[in-house]
């Protein structure tokens, strides 16, 4: 055991899914030609003024409620002043001392244990633009170009309490947080498009100490894996410094994903004085308590509650329920299938196995598939009735996946339907028994291996369509008749 306790707090930025930007009517769509989603307001032209997007307020409140936050009656907007080419007004409109959401928590699970991390606050702010450098990075580039399409997209910044005790906890917490935000439909949380970003504060302290150690902020964390790796590296680095009798300097470090290390970005002395003050262009916002009640009622069932219900209602394992509820769409697909086909365990197996394989290979998510829950249920029922075998079922699902056709159509097209009619099969069986008298005799004498031989012959004759169980039954009947 280490003699240090790890203390981690996170700051998560996530873009809200509003159609228009936070202070103007420009679209928030990702991509587009550079500077094509801009107007005087999000370009910060002289004389332009911000006007609050009500949908952004609503999404922020819903996110806060999903994170068990309190929604204070008043919140207001402040200016965070700093110079940077991607910041068109040279200040970011943010919330300083009266954020929209405060005092929440998130419950998450790690290795079967249920944990909780406090949410200090969540506030609304605007996104900055994007620099495009002529070289690989700002250093050594001859010039940089600016794209303000992103400027003014609404963001919430979620700040946690320093409640996380390991890199693994940080990762599990983040996965849970992402899932909650997705469930609430306030953000699509796409880390690769930058709509979810995370900075981490990490410090060590002697085990048993209540005082916090000197913290280091880590930036440039672009995936869950990067976050866990960076934190592991940083915990190790800080422990080494302490072990060698050194002290940690309060600073901001950047994660270098290729080298797998953190490097100094700026020291505390170099940190900005943002000179926050209330934005005189916006008025304070008063939140109506009845509105908050309505938004509370409209919250969806959140991931952990859903998982618990899946375990209890469908007899799923903790692992299965966890996988199925990681995405709300996946969970919905599951429940819609189960509504038509009651065996939840079976549905879970198919969704997590064959179906997930197909999704992964096609690089799409469950919302993009052509297969409907009703079709999947129909397929499972067809297998249950013995009309096709399980192996054939996989082939049918694959065809459903690419064509979107009903399983019955595919089965018919492929001529796959099993022959389970014993009268139809009896003739074939009798013919084969007659054609192979020696083998039949040995079977009568008790050589069980020959049962397989006869079933195989029948399958060959019927081009695989015979239901092997029915064939077995007919042969057993003939043996009984003769004994």
């Amino acid at each position, binding site marked *: 055991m280490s003699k240090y306790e790890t203390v981690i707090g996170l700051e998560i930025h996530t873009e809200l899914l509003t159609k228009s930007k936070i202070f103007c009517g420009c679209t928030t769509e990702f991509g587009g030609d550079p500077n094509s989603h801009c107007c005087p307001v999000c370009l*910060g*032209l*002289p004389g*332009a*003024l911000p006007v609050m997007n009500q949908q952004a307020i609503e999404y922020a409140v819903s996110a806060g409620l999903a994170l068990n936050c309190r929604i204070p009656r008043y919140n207001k907007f402040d200016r965070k*002043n700093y110079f*940077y*080419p991607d910041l*068109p007004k040279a200040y970011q409109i943010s919330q300083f001392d009266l954020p929209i959401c405060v005092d929440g928590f998130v419950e998450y699970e790690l290795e079967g244990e249920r944990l909780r991390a406090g949410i200090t606050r969540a506030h609304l702010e605007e996104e900055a633009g994007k620099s495009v450098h002529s070289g690989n990075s700002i250093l050594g580039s001859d010039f940089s170009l600016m794209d303000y399409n992103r400027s003014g997209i609404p963001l919430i910044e979620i700040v946690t309490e320093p409640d996380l005790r390991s890199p693994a906890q940080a990762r599990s917490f983040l996965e849970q947080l992402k899932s909650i935000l997705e469930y609430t439909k306030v953000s699509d949380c796409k880390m690769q498009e930058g709509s979810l970003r995370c900075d981490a504060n990490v410090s060590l302290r002697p085990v048993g100490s209540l005082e916090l150690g000197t913290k280091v902020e880590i930036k440039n964390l672009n995936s869950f894996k990067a976050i866990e790796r960076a934190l592991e590296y940083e915990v190790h680095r800080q422990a080494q410094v302490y072990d060698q009798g050194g002290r940690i300097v309060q600073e901001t470090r950047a994660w270098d994903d290729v080298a797998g290390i953190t490097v100094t970005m700026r020291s505390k002395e170099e940190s900005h004085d943002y*000179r926050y003050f209330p934005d005189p262009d916006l008025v304070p916002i008063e939140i109506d308590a009845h509105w908050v009640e309505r938004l509370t009622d409209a919250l969806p069932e959140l991931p952990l509650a859903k998982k618990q219900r899946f375990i209890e209602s469908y007899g799923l394992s903790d692992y299965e329920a966890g996988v199925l509820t990681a995405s709300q769409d996946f969970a919905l697909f599951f429940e819609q299938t189960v509504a038509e086909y009651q065996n939840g365990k079976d549905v879970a197996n198919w969704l997590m196995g064959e179906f997930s394989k197909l999704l992964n290979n096609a690089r799409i998510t469950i919302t993009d598939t052509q297969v409907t829950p009703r079709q999947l249920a129909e397929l499972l029922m067809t297998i249950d009735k013995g009309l096709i075998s399980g192996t054939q079922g996989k082939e049918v699902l694959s065809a459903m996946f690419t064509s979107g056709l009903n399983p019955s159509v595919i089965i018919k097209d492929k001529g796959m339907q099993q022959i389970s009619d014993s009268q139809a099969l009896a003739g074939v069986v009798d013919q084969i028994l007659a054609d192979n008298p020696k083998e039949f005799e040995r079977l009568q004498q008790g050589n069980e291996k020959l049962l397989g031989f006869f079933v195989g012959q029948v399958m060959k004759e019927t081009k695989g369509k015979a239901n092997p169980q029915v064939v077995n039954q007919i042969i057993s009947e003939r043996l009984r008749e003769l004994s």
Partner: protein
Amino acid sequence: MELYQYTARQLQQCLSDNEVTSEMIVNSFLAQIERVEQEIGAFITVTADQALEAAKESDIRRRRNELVSPWDGIPIAVKDNMSTKGIKTTCGSKILANYVPPYDGTVIRKLKAAGLPLLGKTNLDEFAMGSSTENSAFAKTCNPVNWAKVPGGSSGGSAAAVAGYEAPWSLGSDTGGSIRQPASFCGLIGLKPTYGLVSRYGLVAYASSFDQIGPLGRSVEDVADLMNIISGYDQLDSTSVNRDCPNYAAALTGDIKGLRIGLPKEYFAQGLNDAVKAAIMAAVDKLVAAGAVVEEVSLPMTEYAIETYYLITSAEASSNLARYDGVRYGLRVADEDSITMFKSTRSAGFGPEVKRRIMLGTYALSTGYYDAYYKKAQQVRTLMRREFAEAFAKVDILITPTTPTTAFGFGEKKNSLEMYLSDIYTVTVNLAGVPALSMPVGKDQEHLPIGMQLIGQHFAEEALLNTAYTLEQVKLKEGCVHE
């Protein structure tokens, strides 16, 4: 009398009697500009072609009986800090010397919608910071009454244009007296409306919680008419007030019987020029003769007005002017990297007064000083608002001098503090957000106009305008022409 000497109301009459065309009117003003502009220097940009074009269109509308407003075809000049699409908007600053906005501010849109041809953009103290228009980076504007004197500021160009008969009326902006003080120095009527009554969208911000656009004219009727054109709720300005606007011209009844006038004793104390005081008291006597009653009131917080005003306005300005960084528009002084480019651009682009206020404001907002300066000043501001509200519980309007002295000479104010003190009677109005009007009430020994300030409670523009109108009518009966 030439057309350029007419008030807007008189021009309106001529137009509706079909005695003249808008083209003739605009040509008359352009000819006057040609004659006197060399000496007066009211304009930064004269938009002769656009004005004539707009005048011709107005004449066509008149022939077709398709007038868009009662003022269709009457030209106007506006201060060069209002965003005009396709027309340079410099704010009197080198940093915006070549900036051509891609959009019209709301007030400009309203002028166009009412069919008013734009004669040009008028000179001002850089970013509206100053009281003499001497801080303009481009031109010297003389007081048309006496070319050796300043026209006041910061809307010095807008006042000089009207006083010099280069425009029948104009728009200025008032952050701490920038409409009223030049109106006073040039012998005009100038109104600073209630904060929120006229949209700020497109007004290049100096101090957002103070700035307000307002009219300047040679008669009270013209000022009332212009208010009808520019006032009203605008959803592009979050600080715009959503309430019905009255017909300001209809408020000019000439009846002020029972009007309660308060004379705040702090505004008649030391530092006030004797001639100014005598002229104000004589005007008050005339109002009493017309049926008003007078009592002395006290506004003790006035003592802190200048300090409070400069702390808050500079703080807001330091943030508002941060966007001029050379990245997107305006002046760019190329340098090694973005930070040095910002520094070089801003060092070269801003004049000394602007830099002084940016530094003062940056300091007042900095960590460790915020509470002592910015926050304290905001608390004082609240007390001032309360003090005004208490005064208006007793009286309908307050009467004060607009300025301690009449127009001063170029270079006469040796330092900033001396210059700041010339705003001592006007800044409290912006701190409280209430409306105030300046009107001429006489002349001093040098034949320089003396201005009287009428202050009302929020949205009391009708009372201010009617009181001014009543006094104007009394003076006209006495045989005084417009000063």
